[in-house]
């Protein structure tokens, strides 16, 4: 088996890109990723594209290939909700490792904020709910996550102020990223006082809706720069609808991460995780800060870097790759050697974990 390396990354700023459609945003990100990898269009022989809610096309990957000037030997359009980006990276690595492709471009983006009304976006997203059993109740994505959160708080003793710690941390990190959607610092008191959306979640506990695109290149050839390899990947899909999730303490996230870690040959302790219900305490202690022992979402995550659908999830992988390559600028984490990237789609429905490593 070959090793798969991430050799180039690119993204637009997240926020509002009035008048720029999904394909144009994807092209912006793809151009940056190719330039970063010092590759010509013709070098790309595999293409994976994430879906765009503002462009529900039957064949998005080949539509993009035609517009962007690619003639890939393998092309797929992938739909796995917010887990799509990580799933595409896993798939790209498998295409490379199996020898099917040399260099796979992975790209996603859309004008989710400016390309539709707020109501339209919220209703489109609510359709991840069950059309008979859930949606007729007047549900929304925040309401699904609020139901999950209510039970998680009940079982772990986590409080609303604990959740607020993570929103504050994400904003702190986003403030150091010029491409982030939301960069104004916030406090725990401001999160707690923000408008209620669906208890226990308030406005500042929820992601913004962003325009934006993200791309990266997965290659068999490590290239000339720092070598960032995908050491392991794993998925788990235990339910589609929230009602069918048997326990909020077992959504499939752990199963996906376990598979990725086993494939990577790393132990969980080599990356580290907070214990169940212990994340807020660790956030307060600064353990997730850029200079802490376990830096978390150093770009600001979905909460503050922004959420542009598939690209929102992919931004985490791009940030991890840049950190491992030592190219995160003022956000650079000291001595970064391994990163765990996790993405979920739907309502904790689809889980994909990736283990990235700096080689050499």
């Amino acid at each position, binding site marked *: 088996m070959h090793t798969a390396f991430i050799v180039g990354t690119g993204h637009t700023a997240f926020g509002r890109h009035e008048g720029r459609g999904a394909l144009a945003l994807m092209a912006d990100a793809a151009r940056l990723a190719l330039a970063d990898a010092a590759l010509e269009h013709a070098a790309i022989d595999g293409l994976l594209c994430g879906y765009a809610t503002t462009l529900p096309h039957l064949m998005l990957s080949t539509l993009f290939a035609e517009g962007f000037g690619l003639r890939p030997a393998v092309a797929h359009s992938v739909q796995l909700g917010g887990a799509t980006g990580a799933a595409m990276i896993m798939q790209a690595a498998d295409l490379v490792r199996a020898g099917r492709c040399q260099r796979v471009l992975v790209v996603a983006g859309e004008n989710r904020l400016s390309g539709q009304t707020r*109501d339209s976006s*919220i*209703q489109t997203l*609510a359709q991840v709910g*069950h059309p*008979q*059993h*859930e949606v*007729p*109740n*007047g*549900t*929304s994505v*925040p*309401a699904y996550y*609020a*139901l*999950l*959160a*209510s*039970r998680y708080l*009940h079982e772990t003793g986590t409080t609303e102020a604990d959740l607020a710690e993570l929103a504050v941390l994400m904003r702190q990190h986003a403030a150091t990223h010029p491409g982030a959607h939301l960069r104004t610092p916030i406090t725990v008191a401001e999160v707690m006082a923000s*408008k*209620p*959306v*669906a*208890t*226990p*979640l308030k406005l500042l506990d929820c992601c913004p809706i962003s325009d934006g695109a993200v791309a990266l290149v997965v290659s068999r050839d490590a290239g000339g720069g720092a070598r960032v390899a995908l050491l392991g990947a794993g998925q788990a899909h235990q339910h589609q*609808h*929230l*009602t*069918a999730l048997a326990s*909020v303490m077992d959504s499939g996230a752990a199963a996906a991460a376990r598979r990725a870690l086993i494939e990577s040959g790393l132990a969980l302790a080599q990356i580290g995780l907070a214990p169940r219900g212990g994340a807020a305490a660790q956030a307060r202690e600064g353990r997730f800060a850029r200079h802490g022992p376990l830096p978390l979402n150093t770009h600001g995550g979905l909460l503050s870097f922004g959420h542009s659908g598939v690209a929102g999830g992919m931004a985490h992988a791009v940030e991890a790759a840049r950190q491992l390559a030592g190219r995160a600028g003022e956000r650079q984490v000291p001595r970064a050697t391994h990163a765990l990237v996790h993405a979920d789609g739907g309502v904790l429905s689809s889980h994909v974990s990736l283990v990235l490593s700096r080689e050499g």
Partner: protein
Amino acid sequence: MRPDPIDAPASETAYLDGIQQGVLRYQRCAACGRTLTLSRLACPHCGSADLHWLTSNGSGQVYALTQVTRAPSEAFRALLPYTLVLVDLDEGPRVMAHGVPGLRIGQRVRARPLQAGSSALMQFHPESAMPEGPP
């Protein structure tokens, strides 16, 4: 094993049809006997497609709840604020529905039909406040 009394014909809309009639329906696998959450095409435990629709007695326990203050559409804005619940029915399946204000996780509840504008919904009430018998 005694055959199930089938309360509704097999249909892709059996659950919503039940809500229109003011009852909560659930599926039971005729092969392995387990009760199922949501509407399934095959039993997730044994794979059988021989699934029967039954009527719940409407009683259960709150698994999760949220009070919603931002509605997804104009029709639901009129109801704000409203409570959504996940309830584990005594027969086993979990359902999503409305709840009266002030419910808590773990509380015993019972379903009652709720007409909200043109929408037929089910709403859970504290069991202690409810008369006996099916909804």
